[in-house]
């Protein structure tokens, strides 16, 4: 009898410990990203969106969830394919639900926490708000945001995942967007052969080294190391296509000086992310070399750096190709933490 009370009390204590343990387990677990030593500090402010394991998992789940599109056919990962450095392999122009097609190519996704503005024209001013465009564009996922939120709120799995990530199962657009950022923030590509060479862990071959010299002389002013872009908007002399009528950054600023300017894309993983240019008109990197060699059409806004062409001979093109190959980051392209997950 005396022991019975002890057992009851002990059992109760055990129960409390177990319940608390369960609660502790459910708490979002902070994640600290390791930034590459040879990169500048990221511009994304993690103070307003601290990374957690559950937040990243939620972002990843949403990234690959085709139900986020209007007719449940297209996910973010549908166009942003990991093996193409999260660009769209073999697709010149982005396309989405119901056969819709846009006027620009799918940008690659990596190192976005070093980037301040997004889209080819820099129209989007914050990483967290970036997913709004593809989610709602009628040529992409074509979702109505209030409808989408209703859909997600009625899904028990999403309620559970939001609770795990944020402590309560309230599904708001702000939380949704921030979870996307959490996942996208983990897309860091800084482990190509080039990086190993810079960190003195490997050496370029003779051809790669020659290509690096050409790159430094002819490409690096815009495609600046170590991110391989200076994030500026430039008109590179790509002939204007009437059918697409894309004026580039002028659409955002309303300034004629910005006509035909587009964001300088990163050269990292470039050999994995064909086709090239904002409208994907070149399917092969050698076409890009040829364009810079003799294809530039000078307009009022064409960048002085490329106005006279970059003159690349056959040997230089070959060397440049070998250098660009050292920017392919296999550990990123095959990173299992970023890979597609099946949505039931």
């Amino acid at each position, binding site marked *: 009898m005396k022991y019975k009370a002890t057992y009851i009390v002990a059992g109760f204590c055990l129960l409390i410990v177990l319940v608390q343990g369960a609660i502790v387990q459910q708490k979002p677990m902070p994640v600290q990203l390791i930034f590459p030593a040879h990169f500048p500090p990221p511009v994304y402010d993690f103070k307003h969106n601290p990374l957690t394991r559950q937040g990243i998992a939620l972002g990843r789940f949403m990234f690959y969830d085709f139900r986020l599109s209007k007719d449940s056919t297209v996910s973010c990962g549908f166009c942003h394919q990991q093996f193409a450095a999260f660009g769209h392999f073999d697709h010149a122009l982005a396309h989405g639900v119901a056969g819709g097609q846009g006027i620009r190519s799918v940008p690659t996704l990596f190192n976005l926490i070093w980037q301040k503005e997004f889209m080819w024209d820099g129209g989007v001013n*914050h990483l967290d708000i970036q997913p709004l465009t593809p989610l709602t564009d009628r040529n992409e996922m074509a979702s109505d945001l*209030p409808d989408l939120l209703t859909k997600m709120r009625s899904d028990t799995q999403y309620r559970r995942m939001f609770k795990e990530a944020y402590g309560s199962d309230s599904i708001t657009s702000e939380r949704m967007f921030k979870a996307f950022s959490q996942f996208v923030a983990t897309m860091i590509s800084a482990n190509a052969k080039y990086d190993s060479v810079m960190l003195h862990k490997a050496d370029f071959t003779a051809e790669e080294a020659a290509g690096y010299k050409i790159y430094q002389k002819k490409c690096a002013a815009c495609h600046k190391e170590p991110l391989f872009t200076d994030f500026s908007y430039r008109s590179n002399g790509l002939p204007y296509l009437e059918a697409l009528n894309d004026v580039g950054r002028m659409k955002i*600023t309303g300034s004629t000086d910005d006509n035909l300017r587009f964001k300088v894309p990163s050269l990292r993983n470039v050999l994995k992310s064909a086709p090239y240019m904002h409208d994907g008109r070149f399917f092969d990197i050698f076409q890009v070399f040829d364009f810079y060699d003799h294809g530039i059409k000078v307009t009022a806004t064409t960048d002085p750096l490329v106005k006279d062409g970059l003159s690349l001979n056959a040997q230089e093109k070959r060397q440049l190709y070998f250098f660009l190959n050292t920017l392919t980051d296999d550990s990123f392209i095959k990173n299992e933490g970023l890979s597609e997950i099946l949505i039931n």
Partner: protein
Amino acid sequence: MILRIFLSLIIVVGIVTSVKGQSSFFRMSITHMVGNDTMQRETNYYTPTGEPFTISRFRYFLSNFALLTADDKYISLAPTYFLIDESKPASKIIELPDIPSGKYKGVRFLLGVDSIKNVSGPQSGALAVESGMFWSWNSGYIMAQVEGHSPLIQSPTREFVFHVGGYKVKDQILKYISLTFPENLELSGKQNVTLQMTADLNKWFLPDTIRFQQQPVIMAPSYQAKRIAANYQHMFQIIGIQK
């Protein structure tokens, strides 16, 4: 020591609650007008220059409230954002709690969302982007919008869409609105004050004359948006105060 900390904590909490208990409550009740008529959607109106039109949607943000004291100082109120929507009666009553005691002669607020919130990513509450009051392709809030129809418009839908926004220097359309109370307002203790206001849509069309045929669609930061904003900053009027 612990006792001392505990006591001082009690005192601090006590002061805070007593101060809170003494603050007043400010309510702004906005009536939408078209000239001399109370606004109703899908009803025929005329602009000041005589152009016929109907309204299907009328929305705008108000934020950054401050009160002007009798000695000409602005007291900023807690940062809150409101999306006023003609189709939602509750949205036309703005509640501003915790007004400190004092003598006030006017109110100031921003018609729109300050630039900081335009560059800070997604927000919740009134600023949640699913309202549609945010441009996805060129980030930034639509500060005010009116949509409707006019038989004068030549397009197939005969629709006009004025989405007015722009926070960057070149296209900045943010307008601070300062309104003077009919008489000084003395607040002490706990008081409930209701400010009766009107917002007249017809002010959007003058003094810089806006005509439907000229530009029925304004959906980007632009010169046209700036013209409208310069007009609409005069749309508010205080018509009464109830204590």
